[in-house]
């Protein structure tokens, strides 16, 4: 049973048992033609109404799953960073509230740090969220107020949009567009508009340079990124994530072990991993928000929940980027039977994210001209070479092997 049919079943149930009776009851309370409740009830009875409701359910489930993963990714980043740096990281847990309780009860706090601060620290996210919401939203006096407000909204909405686009497995998918990965990449490239908008609207020189850097970086990395993806699309013959994963699972070399795309297209895999790192703006490619020279770049003037939006959106983009990498090159949700495919998918995504966290905390940031040079002079030719190899494998070799009966290699 796929996610969507489950949602449809749930939508039917809620519509029949809850929504339609409520709206009909409401209609009875008011004189006719003053209340649209009756027409809503009628619409919910049709197939279109049920489908719309089912979509709402599906999107919300995908969103909830994505947000849960977001919290886990942030937590993972904090903990691994702390371990790399010889620290413990956040240790806040429910037990840590003991001191607060003691304080509220009027007795002196016992300061038992070892006992009280020994949790895994997942509550730190909650604390940060509460803090961010509680902060004042400062808008600079000379900022363009409309664009200043729109910047974070564009950024977070395009990122949250990503969450519903990629499937966790062939059954757990909120959307199943045939051009799935193209839509994902399109959603990926909306965010720079938000960055540029907020960088310009802040009326701050640091922010503006940050926004410019972001635009330049994404311009130069989008092309090798899409070219390295083109190899996979050629192999699968489709943009659909489900088809791509099936194709990877179907191609096998020996003993029936599937050959995932990262082996035949190793160059493409490397190029893709570097480009997606630049796309989601993580160290060493986080130039737009370089804190050393640009004071967090385009986020300088933002405070409170708007700043939190930027942070969250970055992690969502990171998660989505890792998910795309998994679908394209690491066999997606395919894996041995007893473990469900969703878990396999998330395991692979988290492995990529952990790899990124290790990179983030062990290398410095590179410079603007160097990043552009890397993008245009090294990654672009490499992605083209990868594409040529794939064309040879998929089109040219089979064509000639039909004529002169070459051995079947690919």
């Amino acid at each position, binding site marked *: 049973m796929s996610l969507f049919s489950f949602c449809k079943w749930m939508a039917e149930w809620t519509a029949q048992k809850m929504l339609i009776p409520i709206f009909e009851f409401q209609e009875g309370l008011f004189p006719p033609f003053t209340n649209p409740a009756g027409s809503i009830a009628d619409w919910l009875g049709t197939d279109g109404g049920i489908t719309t409701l089912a979509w709402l359910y599906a999107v919300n489930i995908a969103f909830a799953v994505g947000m849960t993963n977001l919290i886990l990714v942030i937590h993972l980043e904090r903990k691994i*960073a702390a371990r*790399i*740096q*010889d*620290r413990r990281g956040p240790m806040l847990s429910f037990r840590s509230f003991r001191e607060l309780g003691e304080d509220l009860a009027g007795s002196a706090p016992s300061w038992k740090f070892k006992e009280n601060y020994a949790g895994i620290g997942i509550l730190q996210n909650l604390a940060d969220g509460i803090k961010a919401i509680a902060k004042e939203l400062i808008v600079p006096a000379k900022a363009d107020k409309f664009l200043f407000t729109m910047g974070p909204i564009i950024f977070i909405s395009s990122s949250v949009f990503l969450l519903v686009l990629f499937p966790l497995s062939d059954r757990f998918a909120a959307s199943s567009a045939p051009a799935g990965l193209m839509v994902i990449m399109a959603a990926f490239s909306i965010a720079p508009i938000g960055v540029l908008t907020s960088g310009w609207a802040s009326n701050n*020189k*640091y922010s503006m*340079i940050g926004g*410019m*850097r972001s635009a330049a970086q994404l311009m130069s990395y989008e092309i090798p990124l899409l070219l390295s993806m083109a190899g996979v699309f050629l192999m699968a013959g489709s943009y659909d994530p489900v088809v791509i994963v099936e194709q990877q699972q179907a191609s096998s070399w020996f003993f029936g072990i599937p050959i995932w795309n990262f082996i035949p297209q190793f160059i493409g895999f490397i190029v893709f991993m570097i480009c997606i790192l630049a796309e989601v703006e993580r*160290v*060493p490619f*986080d*130039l737009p928000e*370089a*804190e*050393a*020279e*640009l*004071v967090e770049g385009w986020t300088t003037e933002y405070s409170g929940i708007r700043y939190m939006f930027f942070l969250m959106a970055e992690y969502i983009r990171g998660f989505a980027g890792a998910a795309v990498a998994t679908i394209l090159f690491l066999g997606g949700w395919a894996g041995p039977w007893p473990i469900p495919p969703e878990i396999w998918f998330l395991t692979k995504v988290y492995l990529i994210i952990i790899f990124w966290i290790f990179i983030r*905390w*062990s*290398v*410095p*940031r*590179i*410079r*603007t*001209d*160097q990043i552009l040079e890397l993008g245009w002079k090294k990654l672009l030719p490499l992605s083209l070479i990868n594409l040529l190899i794939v064309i040879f494998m998929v089109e040219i070799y089979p064509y000639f092997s039909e004529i002169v009966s070459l051995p079947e290699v690919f």
Partner: protein
Amino acid sequence: MAEMWISMGPQHPMTHGLWTLKVKVDGETIVDADPELGYLHRSVEKMGERRKYFMNTTLTDRLCYASSTTWTHCYVNTVEELMKVEVPQRAKYIRTIMLELQRLASHLMWAGAYMPDLGHITGALYFWRDRELFLNLLEAPSGSRLLYNYIRIGGVKRDLPDGFEAKTERVMKLFEQRLDEYADLFENSKIFRMRTEDVGKFTASQAQNLGITGPNLRGCGTKFDLRKHDAYEIYDEVDWDIQTREAGPGYGDCFSRYMVRIDEMKESVRIIRDCFKKMPAGPTLASQIPVRAQGEAFRRTEDSRGEALMYVVGDGSDRPYRWKIKSPMFTTISACPHYLKGYKVADIPAIMGSIDICIGETDK
């Protein structure tokens, strides 16, 4: 993109203290720079004229919070020259040990501050973790962790505590191991070298003329270290070499300056070991220390950041008539338009970080 002035500081992650660097940028390229000082000016020289000679060590401790012993030592050395005080031999050895420990702590502080400038926060925590060990060592004889006030006119405050040598040896051994470990993370790392090599270049002759001294000058290949070239304490008796690096013939870049400091830390460890080996027994404070002084004297010492020079004029009273402090960073910052021009905005923290700014001593 049109040219524009960007004001970095006084509150900016690049500044490492309170000062302003105004840079004129053309897009991302630096066209001009204008440093501004004075945000941390405490008029130490004027204050010193109203205090007795021995009281001023409190002020000199606060000249540079990262390297307080070296500054106190420079002052004390000058006043001893002025008063013609003979320092006991053991005190000289203890001073040398403390100076080198302070140099290690100061260089580690610098290395830790330099890494976040390049976007490498882990490096900061690694180096500061090691600095902690040296602060513990400095704390053992002096009793405080940042502002020691340990070196006094005529000697040192008290003798080294028991077991200090063994503890120091343990720390130094660990530190040497860790430096070898860090080599993979920093100087052998491709990205680190991409950021530091061929950035912030200046030649040795330029540096000498602009008044750049210390590790920054040695990073251009000039063999000039006041511990050898104007020997004080017992630097001429212990066994050590001047560390130099150059990025190319006669010029240095950020990477060579980084490597000079790393080499210097290894050399400091060598000096400390040799000092412990040769240290004689005896008193640690001169028996007769005058209060008044007449005449003038200057002394220059190799501070962690370069040439520290103090010039004291006494008029026969117990307070200095004029006390002048030369901070190496004062001239180095003044020269920053020379070595910033032509580089990118992202290079500003890399360059200004590599010259090891301390605003406390610069603003006096």
